[in-house]
């Protein structure tokens, strides 16, 4: 009976359901993980707060401390706090940042746009460049250009993003006298939104996105090239050739189409790396993304804020991977029809 129902909803729907279920499970696991991590350090926000208070000369009595703890719910067992927290999160309430004394959702939404912009910009950069370069290298095998591109790809993949951005900043500062550590030129800082301001913002974002995209691009390019070389040897390519197709038309139509599959699926796996990369680049270049906020929250043991940021980032990644899976199913009939 159940079998009938399942086949009635079709393989694509079943595939999507399965993926969704895994995604939800992952998000749940991440929420537990984030919560646990926040609980790991000895002491809590209150003890940190009191320590800082005493440094600046303030004094907190034991009663004050206990009251503050009770207010924040820190005196209850961990699982109760988790359930409470998760329940609120489900209702869109991420709580208040204890450190910055503002609602967490407000803090995150301020910076989410730029975070997404940088990460997606990096992805876009990677896609736009990896595709033609990969095809070029696969069709011009053994040429000097291919060799050079491969070596550049290797370097781009190997050198960590934060080193690249550090280096880029140094070069820009030293030789072009540009301080990249800002997201907006001083004259636009408090100016209202205008075309000039947008252009200025984009100009400041080009370098970070390019650096972020470079690593992903070289990875993608290497995957695409390897896949293409694999596919070019397959009999169906020889068949197409025997039909009388032109070499270039042949490579673009057949192998690229198939080599795109791993391409799309790796984009999913690459998302976590892109998010990580964008965080660290933001930290180096002091872009106001979620990265510096997370670092600050962690250092201050600002539990609600740090947990929420980790949860939001992970959720975004899971959603991105889900999209890439669906894209893959749409691209490849073998997955679409056999699942």
């Amino acid at each position, binding site marked *: 009976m159940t079998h009938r129902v399942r086949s009635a909803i079709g393989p694509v729907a079943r595939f999507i359901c399965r993926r969704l279920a895994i995604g939800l499970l992952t998000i749940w696991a991440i929420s537990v993980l984030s919560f646990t991590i926040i609980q790991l350090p000895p002491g809590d926000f209150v003890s940190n707060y009191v320590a800082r208070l005493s440094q600046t000369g303030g004094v907190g009595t034991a009663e004050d401390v206990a009251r503050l703890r009770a207010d924040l719910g820190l005196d209850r067992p961990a699982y109760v706090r988790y359930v409470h927290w998760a329940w609120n999160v489900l209702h869109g309430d991420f709580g208040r940042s204890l450190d910055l004394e503002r609602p967490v959702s407000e803090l995150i939404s301020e910076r989410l746009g730029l975070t997404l912009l940088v990460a997606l910009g990096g992805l876009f950069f990677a896609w736009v460049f990896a595709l033609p370069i990969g095809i070029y290298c696969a069709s011009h095998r053994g040429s000097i250009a291919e060799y050079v591109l491969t070596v550049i790809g290797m370097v781009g993949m190997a050198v960590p993003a934060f080193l690249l951005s550090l280096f880029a900043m140094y070069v820009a500062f030293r030789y072009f006298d540009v301080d990249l550590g800002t997201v907006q030129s001083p004259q636009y800082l408090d100016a209202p939104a205008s075309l000039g301001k947008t252009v200025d913002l984009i100009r400041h974002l080009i370098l970070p996105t390019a650096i972020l995209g470079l690593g992903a691009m070289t990875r993608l390019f290497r995957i695409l090239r390897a896949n293409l070389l694999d596919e070019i040897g397959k009999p169906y390519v020889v068949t197409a050739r025997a039909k009388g197709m032109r070499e270039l038309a042949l490579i673009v139509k057949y192998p690229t189409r198939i080599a795109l599959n791993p391409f799309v699926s790796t984009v999913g796996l690459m998302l976590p790396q892109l*998010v990580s990369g964008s965080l660290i680049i933001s930290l180096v270049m002091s872009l106001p993304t979620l990265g510096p906020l997370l670092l600050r929250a962690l250092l201050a043991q600002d539990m609600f804020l740090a947990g929420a940021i980790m949860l939001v980032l*992970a959720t975004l990644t899971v959603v991105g991977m889900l999209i890439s899976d669906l894209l893959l199913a749409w691209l490849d009939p073998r997955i679409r029809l056999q699942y």
Partner: protein
Amino acid sequence: MRRRFVKHRLAVCGGLVVVAFYLAAAFADFLAYSDPGKLDAQRILVPPQRVSLWSAGRFSPHVYRLVRTRNPETLVLDYSADRSVEIPVVLFAHGYPYRLFGLFPTDIHWIGTRGEPTESSLFLLGSDALGRDLFSRLVVGTRTSLTIGLVGVCISLVLGVILGAVSGFYGGIVDLVIQRVIEMLRAIPTLPLWLGLAAAIPPTWSVTSVYFTITLIVSFVGWTELARELRGRIMSLRHEDFVLAAELCGARPRRIMFVHMIPACTSHIIATATLALPTMISSETALSFLGLGLRSPAISLGVLLNGAQNIQAVALYPWLISPALPTAVIVLAFNLMGDGLRDAADPYA
């Protein structure tokens, strides 16, 4: 496999660089001519020095004595060479005491100065904001970073091989659970995770505990790749006829695993491990760079780069960014080598 690897010229170059770096790490104390932890308020931010090889037509390597002045207008410290005082630089000089390979007590370093203490006279790559010799710190820091990578890979290997092999060999529900866990771990952006875990390390812990905790943290995600790779191989091996043949002889699972399966995967394991190492190294570097990993007085490439975080300072004292070079080179060399190994292990992958 060896023949295919040797054909891979870039990979061989990478391999040689890796070997050179590990040799340097093994002899780090010998190469570090100054005590990397010794502060010297009189020698803050010394620029890199030149070693002159000839003195009065004779071969006699030497440096000049440093004279410290403060620019009266900018208040910036300036160092100039007092050309009248030559300090000879000699090979195999006596310096601060250490134990070679942690065993043999000695105080011989590859170079040193004669007449004046090496710590306050010789700065091949300059000194940092606390007057410590950057070259010596670099050598010792490289050792820390390289060993963190190695230990991290060992942890990943153990976890990855066991879980991957079990997953591939037994399949079924065990496989399902392990695969889901891996899938989840891979969906989490690593950096926030690491940051969170690293932030949880109490600041009071000793350098050694922090070192091992950081190693554990960076291998927390590293094992998944290895486990996936190995699982795939083991699963395909399960369908090989020679495995069935062994089963039909009455061989037990343990024998099949260790005689037939694991050896068939060694090249893959080595290649994956080699590719995992640079990731571990750069992870540690990134964490320490952000101030959440190893912290002073520990010395690692990341800790050194932490001093280069302020871009204005770097612009004034560009030698502070020098730890970036060995980091990039070692990561690149490992990647080249790992790539070649992987191609050699599986020419059809």
